[in-house]
């Protein structure tokens, strides 16, 4: 049994043994659980994919004369100004003004909040346009300027829902193509879309949130951020398989981090044809190997992680709750799955290759003493489920 303090001492002295969630599988096979648990201090997990429910808080600083902003646009993307005089909240899924959306179906959705966030992290200039009604101490009524992230006082990313513990596999049983947030789905289940890093994914390696909790330090697109809460739609009371790994949606994390310290490669605007805008973010989370049980959890393999196949042509939009079947991540990553004897081509939205890169970057930061682990200040709920919207007649 190790404590996080003991592990941090080893990290600080450069002696910590750190493996990625991919490397640990063979290592435990080779050394045995008992021996490996003594040797290994940390396992790094990671994911990179669209994280709708993302955005950022921006403090602009004051203009001269001052302005109490009531409406604002960054590169013509509306940012919420009802926070404070010069604080804005920019949402990742907000469309650029005058985007035809799906009026010209399927819409292209070329630019939105996620792309503004990408530009900010990349150090590019964005245009600010702001309006106000004017007050005695904030007389300015209109402002147009350009700025980069370095001109902002703060630019703080918030992901109210990130790191979904598992996710649906989307298919289309209808006879027409459909455009979804899991990609373009051909008719008659010719292809499927999925999104998870499988065996590298943070919450699949700590399925009961033993080490990941409120306050856990995370690698958020290169910055050191942290978990500030359970994520929205956190729903841990669910069906679970081997080692307690959920076979459906389940837990989520709410994360925050300083965008000024992020790496452009891991903050990417997403345009999903016919659906809308999102943001792909890279996250890495270290799992301290406190004991053999914790190590065992991190040995989960793609073949043991199951995901539910859902029909996005009818059952998903109509909330019918029907599940067409279950498939493993090993199958999904092979490029095709089999459902009722039909071969279905599989394409991901989550980038396993980027997740591997993040797990290795975090591994290096821990090994070299630049990233220390934290003890959560509060656990994430382990019993909670989502309920549908209450709709009443007026």
């Amino acid at each position, binding site marked *: 049994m190790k404590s996080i303090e003991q592990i941090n001492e080893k990290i600080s002295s450069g002696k910590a043994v750190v493996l990625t969630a991919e490397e640990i599988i063979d290592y435990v096979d080779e050394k045995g659980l008992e021996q490996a648990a003594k040797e290994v201090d940390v396992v790094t997990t990671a994911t*990179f*994919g*669209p994280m709708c429910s993302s955005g950022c808080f921006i403090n602009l600083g004051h203009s001269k004369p001052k302005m109490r902003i009531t409406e604002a646009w960054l590169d013509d993307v509306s940012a919420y100004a009802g926070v404070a005089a010069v604080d804005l909240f920019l949402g990742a899924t907000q469309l650029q003004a005058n985007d035809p959306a799906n009026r010209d179906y399927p819409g292209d959705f*070329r630019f939105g909040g996620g792309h503004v966030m990408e530009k900010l992290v990349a150090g590019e200039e964005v245009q600010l346009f702001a309006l106000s009604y004017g007050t005695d101490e904030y007389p300015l009524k209109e402002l147009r300027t350009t700025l980069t992230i370095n001109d902002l006082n703060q630019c703080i990313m918030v992901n109210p829902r990130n790191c979904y513990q598992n996710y649906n596999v989307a298919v289309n049983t209808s006879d027409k193509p459909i455009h979804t947030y899991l*990609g*373009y789905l051909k008719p008659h289940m*010719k*292809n499927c*879309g999925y999104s998870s890093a499988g065996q590298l994914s943070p919450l699949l390696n700590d399925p009961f949130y033993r080490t990941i909790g409120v306050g856990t330090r995370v690698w958020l697109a290169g910055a050191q951020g942290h978990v500030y809460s359970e994520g929205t739609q956190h729903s841990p009371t669910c069906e679970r398989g081997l080692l307690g790994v959920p076979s459906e949606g389940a837990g989520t994390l709410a994360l925050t981090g300083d965008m000024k310290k992020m790496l452009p490669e891991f903050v*990417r*605007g*997403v*345009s*999903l*044809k016919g659906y809308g805008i*999102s943001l*792909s973010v890279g996250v890495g989370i270290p799992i301290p190997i406190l004991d053999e049980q914790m190590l065992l959890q991190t040995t989960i393999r793609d073949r043991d992680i199951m995901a539910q196949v859902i029909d996005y042509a009818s059952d998903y939009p109509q909330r019918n709750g029907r599940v067409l079947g279950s498939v493993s991540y090993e199958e999904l*990553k*092979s*490029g095709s799955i089999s459902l009722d004897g039909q071969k279905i*081509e*599989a*394409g*991901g*939205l*989550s*980038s*396993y*290759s*980027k997740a*591997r890169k993040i797990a290795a970057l975090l591994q290096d930061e821990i090994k070299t003493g630049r990233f220390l682990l934290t003890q959560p200040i509060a656990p994430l709920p382990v019993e909670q489920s989502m309920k549908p919207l209450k709709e009443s007649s007026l």
Partner: protein
Amino acid sequence: MSDEIQTKKLMLYFPECETEKPIVYHLVKDYDLIINIFRARVTPEDEGYLVLDVTGTEEHILQGSEYIRSLGIRIDGVNKGLIWDKDKCAQCGCCVPHCPTNALSIPDRRTMEIVFNTEECIECLSCIKVCPFGAVSSLF
């Protein structure tokens, strides 16, 4: 000069030049070439592009290429109308099930990295529609 039949991909660029000539007809008739056109945008009195495969002997392909150049048309044998930007690609793999020729593929399922094989690309443009990161674009 080899008599072996070979196939070469060519991208022709018409910089506001003479385009009334039946180029494909002459390539077939005069140089005994088999032509497979992937994409074309040629409008009179404007610039245009044509992406095609030519199949024939090395000599005939060379002669045919000379004929094309003599009309003031530029030939690019390397680039194609479709461009895959490796740096913009987030390696998600969303495009792979939509690529009919495996020009975009994941050869190593352990690393899950995307590889673009320009030789296999037939410029169907399916990838452009499905790429969430704008990593593929068309010159046309």
